[in-house]
């Protein structure tokens, strides 16, 4: 490449920068979206089920029931309301939406337990959300098991296996470590693919694309010039997300930052290629946006594994997830950032991601030639 071409390219890139950086509102959003996401995911959202409101109906009011209720109250998983309710009243409370579970101690609970060695606790769960229902039932089971184990220990007759549990990588079971890599994939996809597609289609709509294409700069350079500002915005965003993760969410980057940025750049290029491809097929900004939504955002949310567990999906859907670039990127970021693994652990994913990117670029070049012909 000789220097006049570089100069022309530079002039074009500068023009594109003006477009992107002078539109304050769009720019605000480009940075606002990731910031809000990191904050929400970091501080507000968690998949962990805690503070579930439950109602305890204690008909026994004896030593045993009160000991167990005390244990339930001490757990962070439950918020206890005490009441003496009938079945009908429990139903009314659940229909109004607040109560997730009712725990009922029958009369003579402790008496039964100590003399008959068998006692019952009735548990009614609002199973409209099966996940919550199963989880809180299992929490309750653990609490009651604990109670029994303690009671037995007092009798000094126990045969007990004590599990020592260690939580790797995320000892406090925070939601953020799982979400941050997902947010990174989502944001890069949004900026690079959707915004690029909309920006190029806008030039088509306004008719300015024709003017650019007849300029002395080679057409593919025009396209490259259009994408460079978004590449830069993406890298800035990435930096912002990482800084926030480290300083606000106390999330340590365990692996190599350089490797992380290199892999991110590869992913960004694949996103830009996707955005270009969408712009080829769209005639209006609206349709470019709708296509991006359907073919990019949705698969990224669904099939990368950060929102929904891939292993629960039907087999064919898991198959589709293998051609979604963000899936690989998500795995890579998790490995490098959270597990501190090196390139040797992620070379396969990198290879696949590179291969997908290459295919996308080839398709772009071809369709671009057809467009010009």
């Amino acid at each position: 490449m000789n220097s006049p071409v570089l100069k022309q390219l530079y002039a074009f890139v500068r023009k594109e920068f003006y477009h992107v950086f002078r539109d304050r509102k769009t720019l605000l959003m480009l940075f606002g979206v990731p910031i809000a996401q990191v904050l929400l995911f970091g501080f507000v959202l968690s998949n962990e089920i805690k503070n579930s409101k439950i109602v305890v109906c204690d008909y026994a009011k004896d030593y045993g029931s009160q000991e167990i209720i005390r244990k339930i109250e001490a757990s962070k998983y439950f918020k206890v309301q005490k009441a003496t309710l009938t079945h009908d009243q429990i139903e009314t409370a659940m229909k109004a939406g607040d109560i997730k579970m009712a725990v009922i101690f029958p009369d003579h609970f402790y008496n039964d337990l100590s003399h008959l060695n068998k006692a019952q606790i009735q548990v009614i769960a609002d199973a409209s959300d099966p996940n919550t229902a199963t989880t809180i039932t299992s929490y309750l089971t653990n609490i009651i098991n604990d109670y029994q184990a303690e009671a037995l220990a007092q009798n000094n007759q126990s045969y007990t296996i004590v599990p020592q549990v260690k939580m790797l990588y995320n000892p406090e079971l925070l939601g953020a470590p799982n979400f941050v890599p997902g947010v990174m994939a989502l944001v890069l996809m949004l900026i690079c693919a959707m915004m690029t597609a909309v920006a190029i289609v806008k030039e088509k709509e306004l008719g300015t694309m024709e003017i650019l294409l007849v300029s002395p700069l080679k057409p593919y350079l025009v396209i490259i010039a259009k994408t460079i500002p978004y590449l830069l915005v993406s890298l800035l965003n990435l930096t912002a997300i990482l800084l926030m993760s480290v300083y606000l969410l106390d999330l340590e980057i365990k692996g190599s930052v350089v490797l992380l940025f290199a892999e991110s750049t590869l992913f960004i290029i694949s996103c830009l290629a996707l955005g270009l491809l969408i712009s080829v097929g769209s005639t209006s900004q609206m349709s470019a946006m709708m296509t991006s939504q359907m073919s990019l955002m949705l698969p990224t949310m669904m099939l990368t594994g950060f929102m929904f567990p891939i292993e629960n999906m039907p087999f064919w859907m898991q198959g589709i997830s293998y051609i979604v670039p963000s899936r690989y990127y998500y795995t890579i970021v998790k490995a490098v950032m959270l597990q501190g693994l090196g390139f040797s652990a992620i070379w396969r994913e990198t290879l696949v991601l590179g291969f997908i990117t290459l295919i996308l670029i080839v398709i772009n070049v071809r369709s671009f030639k057809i467009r010009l012909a």
Partner: protein
Amino acid sequence: MRTLRFLLQKEFRQILRSRSLLISIVLGPIIQLTLLPLAANFEVKKIAVAVVDHDHSSYSEKLIAKIYASPYFTGGRYRESYKDAAKLVEQNKADIVLEIPQNFEDNLVRDGNAEIFIAVNAINGTKAGVGSGYLANIIADYNQDIRLQWSQPGHFSEASAIDLVNENWYNPFMNYFLYMVPGLMVSLLTGIGAFSASLNIVKEKEIGTIEQINVTPIKKSTFILGKLIPYWVLSMFVFTIGMLISRFAYSIVPVGNISLLYGFLSVYLLTLLGAGLLISTYSDTQQQAVSLAFFFVLVFNMISGVFTPIDSMPGWGKVLSYISPMSHFASVMRMVVLKGSTFIDILPHFIAIVILGVIFNTWAILNYRKTT
């Protein structure tokens, strides 16, 4: 009112001619409601357990067999050392490592207690929490088995048992679709409504026709109403498609009153579309409107309780969730479809969206200035 008729006529003609909009309105719900529910399954199952058994005793083997017999765990991966097993975790081939030390059986028999070591990949906090919970249940069960086996007849006190009698209301078969499909419908409607409404006025700004409208004697409120009603009708249509899909693809029949759902929806849409129009009045280009709408739709979705429990949020997160109209509709939708809640049950949500609706729409009308 006569003016409104002509405005509506024009809007409907434009919408029905916009192919990309129509495709997304008809195909959107079909694609989302057939694919998303398959993906949006948060049940924790198929937890892969890698086992390092240094003891190779009958007790250790029974424990392992008991774990693998549970529907939640998959495995069959045995490793000789913890290091090898940890590698499986690094490669995402195992979620939990269970290490049983040497002399496990001896300790248990001789001292009455023994230790085992469990390491959980906790990057996904939910899976780790729930998975280790399940494992704890199994181990507690196993403890109980051993005691029953060893305790002398007549000495039942050592094995006294509390029996949990479980009832699962509203969704006894624990059908995940029953919970997710109504939630996803809310998410879908919110997306379509907010995007189409927010692009609307700004499009007239971009092509310049807004100037022409502004010199006509149209009242601001009439103009906004003319923009709002078509998308209201359209969203009702999308909702009906969604209800049909959930009826026939997922056999979901609302327990509650369908007209209550439609009634709530019709008010919800006024609120949502008002918010969309508000975005439109603040934007100069479609690109701006898109990014603004995207921002809010994303935030609405995240804090709506559709995907993550609202109970787990901190106080200010709950406040955010309360001022987002989508959370209310999501709750109501699930309450009516699953539990058959009545108007009295959903009244607090109803009041909330009416207030939000009045705020958004007044704001939009005030902010849509015909003069500068």
